[in-house]
């Protein structure tokens, strides 16, 4: 052990001096230039890119949906053939589930969680950058393949034997399987980051029962991700080895089993719905108190409901498999579990209603999106209860009724709150408010368009229209309803276009927001907008659940953290008592290089299994270079070192 240099360089004062403020800004900023851009590790830079990228995939997936609606608008349409149509619906589902809905929630967490818990960074900032790049490259790989007419075409849940080597020769499904490897690598790393951040990087005094509910939602989601995502990675790895090196996991002729795929996929796939939904609930619980101008009703019940939902979510996967030959008794269990999920959901809905009921409502765009949630999600929840019963499920299995249900649940439960969340936090991220007028147009077009597009699908499903057909004959009588649905899709497209215009224009022309434009109570509103590089010039000390709404006490802030190196305060898991100071790493290009090397390995392995061997050499080199400490950084840390 080298002795620590004495005396240690002094930390910040409370309040910090101007020189300390400047030093903090310098220390926590990412380097300039395009190399600096690739080397960025600040959670806000990565978070913004992550959000924008995920929305980019949302728009791409939306364009695919619009093409499908165009094709289905009238019977026997010749616009798109069956082969392209198969790719379209597979790409649409895959994009929305794997490249948009789950990552965008984690992206919001990457940006917001440190601000909400009083930290200067996420845990493992370099890994965070790596997770972003891996996600980006995985998504790009899938879209490049699609543009080269090697887009996957066996549906977003890629059932075998259709997705297996016999019925899907060629490379299409290999790209799908590797897309899973990319996105789940990224998602799993982000889950670990969120757990470590929430447990160890909270401001002093933010005990577990004072964490903002959005952070609770992301924490519970992160735990679910850690136990559910390995399942789909295992499943897709088995699929790709079946396809490429002749294993027999899903090949009944050699002792494999097609249902194994369904079990493994839905053991992940059902919890996945809740990876998307729980963060949506977190947005609700952030927006509602602010616009009702009172603290949330029933905080503890809300937290327990989140945790209960997470546990129940692992007991639902078989309800996707009611049409298989599983034992009937087993199906009854899954029916019961599926219905039970209504209980914690209802607890939360009643708590929100109580909050709204007793508050003084401030009708701004974020609140409109949140109120729409109640209407749409409750409808989706009702059809969910219907689908949970085996006889009804068998009747409408694989029809448009299921398509209607899942869009009501996912768009109502997650996308509407997400749009509300963007309107809500946009001023924090950019320093300017989005236009209210455009916001209202955006909202009403979306709300009306959504219902016009998806409500008729219930009817279509009940009248027997199967999903995933590229066309239908006129005598089926489905033409009118399909035309209406396509009209709704057009309205949604216009509304999303208005949203993009609003986001783009407001960056320069929006009204300046100030620190706290909505009069909210949580910590992210205590700093200027956009936040300084270090987030908090002095780490705040938290004395309640809504720190900005409660009277200030001494001590107010943390003194003694370094201003000239990236030092953060770690606190204890339950009580958030100060525990130790840790020095975080500086920006570096190696996570980016590591992600490139990982991409070479993953894509290479589609073409030769040996890529797993030679491809791991550059990955190992990049990851080692990323870890290897720089002498200058180490001596800066040693200057602040204090042994336990």
């Amino acid at each position: 052990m080298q002795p620590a240099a004495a005396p240690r360089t002094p930390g910040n004062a409370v309040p910090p001096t101007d020189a300390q403020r400047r030093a903090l800004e310098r220390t926590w900023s990412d380097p300039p230039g395009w190399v600096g851009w690739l080397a960025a590790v600040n959670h806000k830079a990565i978070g913004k890119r992550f959000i924008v990228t995920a929305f980019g995939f949302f728009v791409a997936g939306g364009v695919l949906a619009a093409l499908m609606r165009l094709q289905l608008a009238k019977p026997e349409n010749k616009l798109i053939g069956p082969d392209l149509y198969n790719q379209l619906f597979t790409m649409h589902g895959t994009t929305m589930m794997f490249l948009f809905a789950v990552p965008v929630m984690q992206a919001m967490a990457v940006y917001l969680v440190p601000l909400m818990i009083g930290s200067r960074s996420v845990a493992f900032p370099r890994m965070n950058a790596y997770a972003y790049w891996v996600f980006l490259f995985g998504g790009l790989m899938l879209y490049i393949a699609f543009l080269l007419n090697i887009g996957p075409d066996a549906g977003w849940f890629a059932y075998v034997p259709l997705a297996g080597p016999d019925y899907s020769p060629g490379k299409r499904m290999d790209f799908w399987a590797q897309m899973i490897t990319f996105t789940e690598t990224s998602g799993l790393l982000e889950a670990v980051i969120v757990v470590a951040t929430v447990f160890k990087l909270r401001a002093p005094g933010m005990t577990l029962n004072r964490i903002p509910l959005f952070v609770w939602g992301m924490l519970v989601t992160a735990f679910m991700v850690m136990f559910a995502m390995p399942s789909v990675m295992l499943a897709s790895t088995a699929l790709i080895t079946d396809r490429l090196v002749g294993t027999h996991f899903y090949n009944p002729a050699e002792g494999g089993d097609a249902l194994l795929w369904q079990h493994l996929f839905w053991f992940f796939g059902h919890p996945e719905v809740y990876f998307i939904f729980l963060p949506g609930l977190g947005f609700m619980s952030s927006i509602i108190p602010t616009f009702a101008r009172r603290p949330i009703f029933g905080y503890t019940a809300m937290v327990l409901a989140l945790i209960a939902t997470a546990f129940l979510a692992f007991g639902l996967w078989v309800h996707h498999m009611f049409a298989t030959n599983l034992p009937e008794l087993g199906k009854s269990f899954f029916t019961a579990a599926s219905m039970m999920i209504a209980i914690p959901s209802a607890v939360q809905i009643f708590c929100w209603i109580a909050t709204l009921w007793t508050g003084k409502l401030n009708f701004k765009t974020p609140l409109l999106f949140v109120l729409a949630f109640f209407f749409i999600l409750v409808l989706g929840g009702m059809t969910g209860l219907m689908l949970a019963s085996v006889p009804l499920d068998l009747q409408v299995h694989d029809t448009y009724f299921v398509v209607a249900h899942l869009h009501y649940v996912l768009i109502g439960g997650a996308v509407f709150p997400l749009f509300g969340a963007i309107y809500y936090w946009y001023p924090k991220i950019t320093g300017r408010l989005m236009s209210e007028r455009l916001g209202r147009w955006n909202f009403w077009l979306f709300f009306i368009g959504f219902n016009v597009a998806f409500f008729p699908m219930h009817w279509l499903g009940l009248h027997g229209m199967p999903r995933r057909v590229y066309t239908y004959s006129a005598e089926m009588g489905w033409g009118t309803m399909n035309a209406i649905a396509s009209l709704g899709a057009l309205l949604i497209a216009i509304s999303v276009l208005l949203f993009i215009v609003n986001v783009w224009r407001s960056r320069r022309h929006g009204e300046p927001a100030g620190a706290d434009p909505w009069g909210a109570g949580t910590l992210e509103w205590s700093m200027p907008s956009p936040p300084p590089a270090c987030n908090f010039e002095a780490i705040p000390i938290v004395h309640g659940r809504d720190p900005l709404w409660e009277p200030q006490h001494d001590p107010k802030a943390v003194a003694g953290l370094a201003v000239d190196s990236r030092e953060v305060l770690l606190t204890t898991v339950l009580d958030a008592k100060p525990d130790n100071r840790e020095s975080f790493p500086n920006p570096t290009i190696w996570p980016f290089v590591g992600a490139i090397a990982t991409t070479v390995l993953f894509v290479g392995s589609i073409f030769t299994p040996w890529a797993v061997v030679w491809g791991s050499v550059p990955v190992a080199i990049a990851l080692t270079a990323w870890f290897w400490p720089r002498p200058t950084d180490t001596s800066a840390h040693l200057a602040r070192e204090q042994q336990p």
Partner: protein
Amino acid sequence: MSLFGDGTQSAAMRRRQDARARVRVEGEALDVADLPSFGFSHRSLMWWGTVGLMAIEGTAFALAIFAYFYLRSHANRWPMSTPPPALIWGIVNTVVLLVSMWPNHMAKRAAEKLDRGGVQMWLSACLLFSFVFLVFRWFEFEALNVRWDTDAYGSLVWMLMGLHTFHLITDTWDTTVLDVLFFTGPIEGKRYVDVSENALYWYFVVLSWLPIYAVVYWAPRG
């Protein structure tokens, strides 16, 4: 009530609290300059990161074992067309892996005492074990008596063995990098935490082998 003591607390209470937490309250400031700059076990982020990865990988192992028994429950014969794996190298390697926990434990202890020489010595000892168990793992693969493309049983055996071997290789590489770093420097306090959490991961890799060993070698004989 404030967590950190305000004027109303007795001086003795405050001293006790502050001695424990090594923080000082001065007016509106809470001074943390005297806190340690690293901590072991659950006090460190590295521990939480490692535990998170262990949860993920443990789940993957458990699901692979589930898949094994799921397909076995559908089979008339198990193994389906081949003899079960020969026992000898599996037994020998299990012993090697279990014994490797000893130098690993010593490396962890040396790290927690901030003993650079001890860390160098015991990490090097761990690497000797790594070399031995990777060679023996090769022999294990040779003695499986089945290929991954023979039938579904073979695929599962190779999946279990492949998953675990992947962990042996990555842990060996992690340990190599740390060992070299402890010889060359630069070293600061938190590198000892890295060694300690790397040792935790080593325990995980060894202990997760036991159920996999039982499944690969004994389930076909049961």
